[in-house]
């Protein structure tokens, strides 16, 4: 991890875009809830996420160049700040674990059946640690290639599925109970958009001139377009099967068969998904290790990356050995836990920072008035 490497605004955009596309490729949590109305939650989720994005940007504006962990300590002091940083670090480790588990289940279930999941997890983690040790700047450079590749594959595949698409699958619209739409929106903001809180840990790596507001908003719009395209394609192709398949995007690709020449397109999707998951895992690994480094006051997270990566692998093996339990957790319970950490804690931090600033400025004003009277 090279401390001197810096990420430009454009690279930050591609990093955030890659992360969000990687997250949105796992859309099972929405499609299993909203079926043919899943596309609605992409928009409602994005709109509902805007106030929370404003909270993130408010924190960044108040503490420029500081990471989330440094902001915690600046606002709450060393002890309380570290406790809060522990919560965030655990949260990032939790997302990293579930992301790895999801990817390993995909590989073992669809691509290489019979392969021991332990081996898949370990091999994947070793490559993640190796890449993260090289620094985030090389990863940021790769992200541009990955993001454009993912978009190209998505667009081409969507065009190839047109022959199998049926617009009737979009109907009937809005027939589900209202609570389902609430669940879909809640899941979208907490499981998909909300994970972008991890970018607050990358801020010290950015160029000092970089304004993160534009890249964050641009990547949000980009992710909305990509997610809408992907979800709509799945609805139009899979129709009533959509809530019952574990990997809608993969199953959609499997249907493509152009004159028996263009078949097995799903392998391209698998490649893109694994690449984006790799990128996401690297970002989360960096965030978690940075959190540990900040809490324990070690100079660099680089030396602890391998043992920490090994810990994540064994932690993943003990967590949700049954895939069904994992899917239940994703759709039904995790949105509540994620909401507290992704939105309520940053909001409290921003309020505390404002209060601290307000008290500080009123005290300074009081001292000034006293000096003028004398």
């Amino acid at each position, binding site marked *: 991890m090279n401390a001197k490497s810096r990420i430009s605004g454009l690279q930050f955009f591609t990093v955030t875009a890659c992360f969000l596309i990687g997250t949105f490729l796992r859309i099972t949590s929405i499609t299993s809830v909203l079926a043919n109305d899943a596309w609605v939650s992409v928009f409602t989720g994005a709109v509902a996420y805007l106030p929370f994005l404003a909270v993130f940007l408010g924190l960044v504006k108040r503490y420029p160049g500081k990471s989330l962990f440094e902001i915690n300590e600046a606002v709450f002091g060393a002890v309380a700040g570290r406790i809060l940083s522990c919560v965030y670090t655990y949260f990032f480790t939790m997302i990293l674990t579930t992301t790895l588990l999801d990817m390993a289940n995909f590989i073992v279930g669809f691509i290489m059946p019979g392969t021991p999941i332990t081996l898949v997890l370990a091999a994947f983690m070793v490559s993640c640690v190796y890449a993260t040790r090289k620094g985030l700047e090389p990863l940021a450079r790769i992200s541009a290639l990955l993001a454009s590749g993912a978009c190209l594959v998505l667009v081409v595949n969507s065009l190839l599925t047109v022959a199998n698409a049926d617009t009737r699958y979009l109907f009937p619209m809005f027939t589900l109970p209202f609570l389902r739409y609430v669940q879909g929106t809640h899941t979208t903001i907490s499981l998909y958009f909300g994970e972008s809180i991890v970018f607050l840990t990358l801020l010290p790596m950015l160029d000092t001139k970089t304004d993160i507001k534009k890249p964050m908003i641009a990547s949000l719009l980009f992710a909305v377009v990509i997610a809408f395209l992907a979800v709509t394609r799945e609805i139009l192709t899979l129709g009533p099967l959509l809530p019952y398949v574990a990997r809608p995007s993969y199953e959609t690709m499997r249907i493509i068969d152009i004159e028996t020449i263009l078949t097995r397109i799903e392998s391209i999707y698998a490649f893109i998904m694994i690449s984006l998951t790799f990128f996401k895992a690297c970002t989360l690994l960096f965030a978690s290790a940075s959190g540990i480094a900040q809490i324990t006051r*070690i100079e660099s997270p680089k030396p*602890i990356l391998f*043992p920490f990566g090994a810990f994540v692998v064994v932690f993943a093996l003990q967590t949700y050995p049954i895939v069904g339990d994992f899917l239940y*957790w994703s759709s039904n319970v995790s949105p509540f836990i994620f909401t507290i950490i992704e939105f309520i804690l940053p909001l409290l931090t921003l309020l505390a920072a404002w209060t601290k600033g307000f008290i500080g400025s009123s005290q300074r004003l009081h001292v000034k008035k006293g000096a003028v009277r004398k």
Partner: protein
Amino acid sequence: MIIAGVAAMLIGIAALDLPWLIREKKRRELIVYAICLAAVSAYILLYALDVRFVTSLGLLHRFFEKTLGLHYGGFT
């Protein structure tokens, strides 16, 4: 057997930084390093012995679902 192989691989790779940390006397790093490796070894041992236990994630799941009642009630 696979677990033992993977464990040996992970710990072996993790030990790459060890000589440098000892030479440079990075005490804090060594403590964090030792804690991580101890946790990994304990987890691997339990996994190899087929001892299944509820992880912190599982505990959170139960706490939110059973104690607080915060869940959407059923996989649809």
